[in-house]
């Protein structure tokens, strides 16, 4: 998946959680990625985050610390 598509998907999820009340948006966003993103997608996600995370919503970047890093394949 291209980093652009991955960024768009992650930002779309962030857009929802940003509208939700409470201060735990980053945790909830991360939980969503952990629940629904296959390890390959999370690996691509981290590759992009580790490379600076260009284009990612700040909430996504904040959530990254709570996202489970997939075991090396």
């Amino acid at each position: 998946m291209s980093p652009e598509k991955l960024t768009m998907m992650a930002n779309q999820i962030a857009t929802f959680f940003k509208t939700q009340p409470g201060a735990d948006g980053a945790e909830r966003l991360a939980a969503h990625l952990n629940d629904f993103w296959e390890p390959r997608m999370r690996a691509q996600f981290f590759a992009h985050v580790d490379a600076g995370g260009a284009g990612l919503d700040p909430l996504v970047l904040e959530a990254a610390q709570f996202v489970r890093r997939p075991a090396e394949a």
Partner: protein
Amino acid sequence: MKDFIIPWDDKDMGTPAKSGKPVHLTIDGAKVTVPEGTSVMRAAAEAGLDIPKLCASDNLEAFGSCRLCVVEIEGRRGTPASCTTPVHEGMVVRTQSEKLQRMRKGVMELYISDHPLDCLTCAANGDCELQDMAGVVGLREVRYDAAPEKANHFATRDTSGQPNPEWLPKDDSNPYFTYDPSKCIVCNRCVRACEEVQGTFALTIEGRGFDSRVSVGAENFLESDCVSCGACVQACPTATLQEKSVIEMGVPQRSVVTTCAYCGVGCSFKAELNGDQLVRMVPWKHGKANRGHSCVKGRFAYGYADHPDRILKPMIRERIDEPWQEVSWEEALGFAAKKMRGIQEAYGQKSIGVITSSRCTNEETYLVQKLARAVFGNNNTDTCARVCHSPTGYGLGQTFGTSAGTQDFDSVEKTDVIVVIGANPTDAHPVFGSRMKKRLREGAKLIVIDPRKIDLVKSAHIAADHHLQLRPGTNVAVVSALAHVIVTEGLADEAYIRERCDWDEYLSYAEFISDERHSPEATFVLTGVDPDVLRAAARTFATGGNGAIYYGLGVTEHSQGSTTVMGIANLAMLTGNVGREGVGVNPLRGQNNVQGSCDMGSFPHELPGYRHVKGAEVREVFQKAWGVEIDPEPGLRIPNMLDAAVDGTFKGLYCQGEDILQSDPDTKHVSAGLAAMECVIVHDLFLNETANYAHVFLPGSTFLEKDGTFTNAERRINRVREVMAPKAGYADWEVTQLLANAMGANWHYTHPAQIMEEIALTTPSFAGVSYDVLEEKGSVQWPCNEAHPDGTPLMHVDGFVRGKGRFIVTEYVATEEKTGPRFPLLLTTGRILSQYNVGAQTRRTENSTWHQEDVLEIHPHDAEVRGVKEGDWVRLASRSGETSLRAKLSERVSPGVVYTTFHHPDTQANVITTDFSDWATNCPEYKVTAVQVGLSNGPSDWQERYAAQAEQSRRILPAAE
């Protein structure tokens, strides 16, 4: 226990069942107790005393025209018609006497004097109520001269050879049945069935007395408003309205009750056969989803089952540019197993996956996801529900605690305000649409939220009270505006909310939704919905009594699909409309077994019963049952599989009964993904579009060729019964088992009942389901377990499944898919009545008579500025691709919106649709695509290239002898 045996007896009781306090009467000396309001005819039938009748049928209100059902009642003068006479306490009825017999004979004599006596060669011979009644009343002579020179309706010429002006020729314009006026006894049953059961009002009686004729108000049946549901044919007591298949093949001698394989209504049918030749499908009156009704698909469109296009031999090829090679089952399965295992060795355990089908049975789906989890050793399983109702799963799960639709279909009979959002039941769920229309004719209010003027907005004897004709993509804004009105005008049911929902969450939601930005006046610029209309609709819903919301893919297939589902749940909770009859949130599922395929663990993150794979306890259940380790990580969803394929990490796919190339969005991306795979196994009836990219083809079996269960949109588990042996040798569940075993599994199922046992053992909501239970009860709605041994027609009765109902904030976010100078129009897509989904089945039947190609509906204004006239070829382009099709000028769509269907692969509407998707579930945004329309000369270059590639890839070399 006898009371619990399902009524296999299909006897017609004459008039509809009633409910009321018990009334005691005596009929022919027998004591009878029936509910108040019951007719004497029905009371007699319940006592086993059948009164002769012709114009009565228990699915129609009594009419009292044939005068055959006359009876004598003590203390009353004359001989009243038993069908129109209600019982009363202490009534004493005689159904037989010399006088009654004489009268009935007289009536029959008159009927027969104007009816041809060609019984032996008549198509209804042996299945004719007129013939039966002549026998029952003891008709032995016809004194009235029916000679051709006298006026009659059946002789083509009189004795002098002059044409008989009263005779009318047979109308065989409908592909499935004929209308032969010469055999009509004008009993009105067809007319009443069209009105009362179907609600189309296509038929009427023209003329009076001897001149009375059934009329379609048009040149013929095909040109008329008739929707070919078959209700009139079923109602006809003679051969006047007769299935062409019965005319050709004769009256069927045996029948098997089974479940339709088209939409999510899940109608029960009797498959009527001679030997293993299917003669006709007749809706089964005891089917709890359809109550004896049907539509043109289920009733008539089964011809695909023996269409010459069916592939009955397994086939393989090394490369997709080679022709197919027919091989034995053993060779095909060995080839497939070796390839799939080879891919896993080369690219890793997670490099292959499955797609389960919403058209296959629960048992088959269960096995396919088990194949991924237990044999492939990963969670790469997904289903076509991904592209239709996955947001329902997520949205209702978050708010109510379960993705289940809350009601049964019967519930609509108690509804006062029906809300239809992004659904078109009269086309896509026709049998339920008819039940809905019946309730509307009884006076229920209707709110339609749809960009198009669908039939429900205005058709015979029904009209929407409020039509919110929104711009595609603004569902959340409209639903939030409705909630805004309800909250700010003080119409919320606070007592209900306090009792059943999380009050703090409600308060924070109420504050959010009360903000001025959600008001109808503020959202008007986004949605185009008149604020006054929206306010009026909100008030109707909040104050009109039982409110029920029915929604379809017009809700889910958006970037904010899941958010709209949550918004709908909010509306229902705000107004106290969950947890009893007549209310609720009702997702109308597209395909026959969408519900079941989701229940059976088809999704990559969930084991059967909607339990996340991360849960160790749940995995333990299956690890014990299957004897394998289960991966705790979620697998790939369909769009992710295709992305991974393009990336080179996903190389093998087993795709059962699903045509992702035609049905999934952004065709070019799908074909690129498929082309990048090394082994695509297609298991289907036909060489579908996906099969153009396949290396292995395994022949599938139709719903007529296997045992199993389907679960419909009301969670009803219905039996599918084998009515003929699988034409390719194996039912689909057997093929999956053979593939699993070829890959080293050790499965030993010998009947789908054993698979259901395993499902019941592992999945709490199915714990009480077994084939024995289904045989006994006919069907059950899950949850069916120790707590609910008879199943669960209504959800959340004593509180929400998750505990307290949860209000979720639903902020409108515009989709990224925006109109602009290049693509100024919005395309939205849908279905029509006669075709189904990708059309693989219905295109191979006479249903194509009604719809031969996909057309583009465009508003006359948009057409005019582009110089487009009715029937012109137009080019439809988006940023994803372009195709060509013919234009149809229509005011059903607003200016700025165009609409088409996706039933035909040569149009491929999905070349146009984009890869935008729902934020939570990746359900594609089919319903909004920015497009441009212009005149064209015919099919696009892409369409021609696609057709050539498809033809090339469908070549088949015969098996080596």
